[in-house]
């Protein structure tokens, strides 16, 4: 009996030792790479913003004209996110919002949306997802053009019932075999537009046109 107890204890100690060691290695790598990861993700985001906001729409420094958006159920966000405002001659022309589709096939799909001042989508892109490669990943631009189907859509032309994939009676295309993925994104886009409608003024005005940054 004693022998068994001792060997059990030994096993436990052994496992704990290796787990602690592993955690230490992981944690230190995490802290070492964290800044670089944030930086490269931000650089990627800027590239995306330039894709979805037509350059004719703004003449301001869009990266600097940002606003913190509190977590919102309509946006599917659990943390404060950043909205970027596009302005033309000082007039608000579009806003770039982050949104999360929580119900993708393999978890959350992070989106970035540009909404014109009139409530029309200028563009949507997928920032991060874990959908099945080769099946659900046509939502990413180089792998499929599906995501461009959102360009120019608004809640003025499509009612709630239209914001669904065609299989569910809506207006949006999907690919057979991967319906859950587009369903999640369409839903998230619609909700983001509702959010925009409710918060339009807050989004554009909050901290007014920023001062010219001196270089």
């Amino acid at each position, binding site marked *: 009996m004693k022998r068994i107890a001792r060997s059990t204890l030994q096993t436990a100690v052994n*496992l704990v030792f*290796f787990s602690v060691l*592993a955690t230490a290695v992981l944690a230190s790598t995490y802290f070492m790479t964290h800044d670089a990861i944030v930086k490269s993700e931000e650089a*990627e985001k800027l590239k995306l913003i330039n894709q979805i906001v037509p350059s004719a729409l703004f003449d301001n420094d869009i990266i600097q004209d940002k606003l913190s958006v509190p977590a919102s159920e309509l946006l599917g966000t659990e943390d404060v996110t950043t909205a970027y405002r596009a302005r033309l001659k000082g007039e608000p022309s579009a806003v770039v919002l982050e949104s999360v589709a929580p119900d993708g096939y393999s978890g959350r799909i992070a989106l970035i949306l540009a909404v014109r001042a009139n409530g029309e989508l200028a563009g949507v892109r997928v920032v991060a997802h874990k959908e099945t490669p080769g099946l659900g990943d046509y939502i990413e631009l180089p792998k499929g053009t599906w995501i461009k189907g959102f360009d120019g859509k608004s809640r003025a032309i499509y009612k709630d019932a239209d914001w669904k994939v065609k299989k569910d009676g809506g207006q949006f295309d999907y690919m057979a075999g991967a319906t859950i993925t587009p369903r999640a994104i369409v839903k998230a886009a619609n909700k983001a537009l509702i959010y925009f409608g409710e918060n339009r003024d807050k989004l554009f005005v909050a901290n007014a046109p920023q001062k010219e940054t001196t270089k």
Partner: protein
Amino acid sequence: MNLQEYKDILHNGLWKQNPGIVQLLGLCPLLAVSSTVVNGVSLGLATALVMAVSSGSIAPIRSYVPNELRIPVFILIIAVLVTVVQYLMNAYMYGLYVVLGIFIPLIVTNCIVLARVEAFASKNSALPSALDGFAMGLGLTAVLGVLGAMREVLGKGTLFSGIDLALGDMAQGWVLHVIPDYKGFLIAILPPGAFIGLGLLIAGRNWLNLRAEQKARSKPVPAPIVSPEAAQG
């Protein structure tokens, strides 16, 4: 360990026991990521790195790990190393990280990694173990690269597309358009293309092996009869 043994380790990994076309281990990434050369080789090298480090780091501690605990401990170590590689790629090779996506964490489940740790590193010292892991990883990389090239040329008519993701913007012009104005051959890019390509590679290797054996047999010197190498599952 003498030089010959190191050579044997390399030969085993790259040809005789090649994980991709002889042991047929690690087929999940092999089939999924080999749609282009760049994808295949990148994931192959990431796997080789993980294998070399995991084999090399498990070998010296093998006597401290009780036998009944070895699988969880080995998997823990492999998982940590893979996550470290994932963090590093996320930080410094963002484009490639996005392309390889879920297949980086999936290196953990690639049975070839655990198989080499179990079969080699748990019985040998650190240096040969690291070499064995690396050689096996390189063998896998070679298969991924060849299969990727076959599928990419047939499917898209290009070679090295996406190389700028791995090596930065300066490599953008390195993409070869092997067949200009190619309309594409979808099945080569889709998973069935991977199965067909892999089958051809295995057949090719077996043919080369048989030919070498026949040559050896037809020599006047009576050689001991070797049983044809059985494919392993």
